[in-house]
């Protein structure tokens, strides 16, 4: 509840009161009927738009014209972010030769047989060699770091990159199990372990938004 009210700080003043009233009425309604608070918005579509452009600029800052750099989207949810960044680089900054690959890490995970639901694999599409290239991993949410650890192993099947960086839209800091940190971050959030961060993309979920789910 308190976090919800705090989120209001980012909105402009005219909407703040009515929005808080709205949140308050939902809260009263849900408490009356015994339903726990579930979903709150962390980033709106406009905020995501601004962040993506910033991330694209940061990539250009470090990689110039992407001559020796390849982007690798981590399946399944990192693909949307990666494709969006490539589109921004092409359309707004005139960098057209960006190489993008899709990497599936299912077979490299260290929690095979330790999860309740079986893992489902996705397609890996990397039609170039990463040998001596600068690789940028792209994923939507960085949580425990285990996916990235698996990706670090998986990418070795395609050669030995000269270096690997990590770009994430949401960095859930304080929840890492491994010493892995992002090089480019969209937004850092502090959420407790029971809460989930869900990223929606217009290509798949009708609109861009980042939510925090509270079970």
């Amino acid at each position, binding site marked *: 509840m308190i976090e919800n009210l705090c989120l209001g700080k980012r909105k402009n003043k005219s909407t703040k009161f009515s929005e808080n009233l709205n949140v308050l009425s939902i809260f009263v309604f849900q408490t009356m009927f015994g339903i726990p608070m579930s979903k709150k918005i962390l980033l709106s579509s406009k905020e995501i738009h601004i962040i993506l452009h910033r991330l694209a600029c940061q990539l250009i800052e470090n990689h110039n014209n992407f001559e020796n750099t390849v982007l690798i989207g981590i399946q399944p949810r990192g693909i949307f972010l990666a494709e969006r960044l490539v589109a921004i680089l092409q359309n707004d900054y005139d960098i057209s030769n960006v190489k993008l690959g899709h990497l599936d890490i299912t*077979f490299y995970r260290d929690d*095979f*047989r330790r999860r309740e639901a079986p*893992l489902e*694999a996705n*397609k890996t599409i990397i039609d170039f060699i990463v040998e001596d290239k600068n690789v940028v991993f792209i994923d939507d949410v960085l949580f425990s770091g285990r996916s990235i650890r698996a990706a670090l192993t998986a990418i070795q*099947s395609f050669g030995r990159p000269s270096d690997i960086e990590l770009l994430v839209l949401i960095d859930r800091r304080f929840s890492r199990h491994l010493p892995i940190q992002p090089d480019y971050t969209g937004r850092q959030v502090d959420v407790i372990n029971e809460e989930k961060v869900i990223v929606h993309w217009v290509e798949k979920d009708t609109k861009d938004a980042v939510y925090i789910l509270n079970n």
Partner: protein
Amino acid sequence: MSQLSVQHLLGIKHINKADIDLIFKTADHFKEVINRSIKKVPSLRDITIANLFFENSTRTKLSFELAEKRLSADVINFSASQSSVKKGETLIDTANNILSMKVDIIVMRHPNVGACDFLSKHVNAKIVNAGDGTHEHPTQALLDSYSIREKLGNVAGKNIVIVGDILHSRVALSNIYALKLQGAHVKVCGPKTLIPKYIESLGVSIEYDIKKALEWCDVANVLRVQNERMEINYFPSTREYAQLFGINKKLLDSLDKKITIMHPGPINRGVEISSDVADSDQSIILNQVENGVAIRMAVIYLLAQQIQQ
């Protein structure tokens, strides 16, 4: 669906269409893996697999072993010819002795029908049938259907003829189950003595004329004449068999369409299939072998997924 409906792969008879779709979908990913420069994934590094081969095999054994190694499993091999089976040990004793060395999955080929079924009820491990007598050879049927799907886009609605020694063939029975499950039309063709009496009850039709059968089909799966399983003569001579049921270039060229030729191997060149057909562009025999590794990786991966940590 992301899990198999069965605990062991004993035969195609025990699985359903959704299982086949899941195995094919998983095999697609593994096919991509085995075409990389580093063809290995670490998924099964804490799994141990025993390959028990009580009957001779080259292709299937190598294919299973390669599939297991590409998944990073630990592999132990056993062949009956160099083992204590010769000293009179029973199947359950052999299996339990191997299991006490902490083995998770057993891949078994055995000359007796139902050996895998029997073993699955008595030992605590996942069992994969790599061929039991004249009964079933499920991974072969899966890779055959997978190869048809790869070549023709789909299995449903296609006309498939299985040619040759249907009576002694586990490949034929598993293929019939698999193809029917996926909605293909199946015909069997061969000498009357090598076609089982009630085969039509499985929903297949019979054709004794090879030319007519080939004219009808999109794919011909040609089986080996299994001399080692024949105690009596089922046909007068190999030469006569080759003349009446052998597939050669002349016969294929006389058809008005280009059909696909498959063979589970090993080939008796010049008997059921001539060399110019086996090596032609219509034959997908070597694709079958490549797909075999991907299919076996998928089957083992999906079964291993069910093992409790």
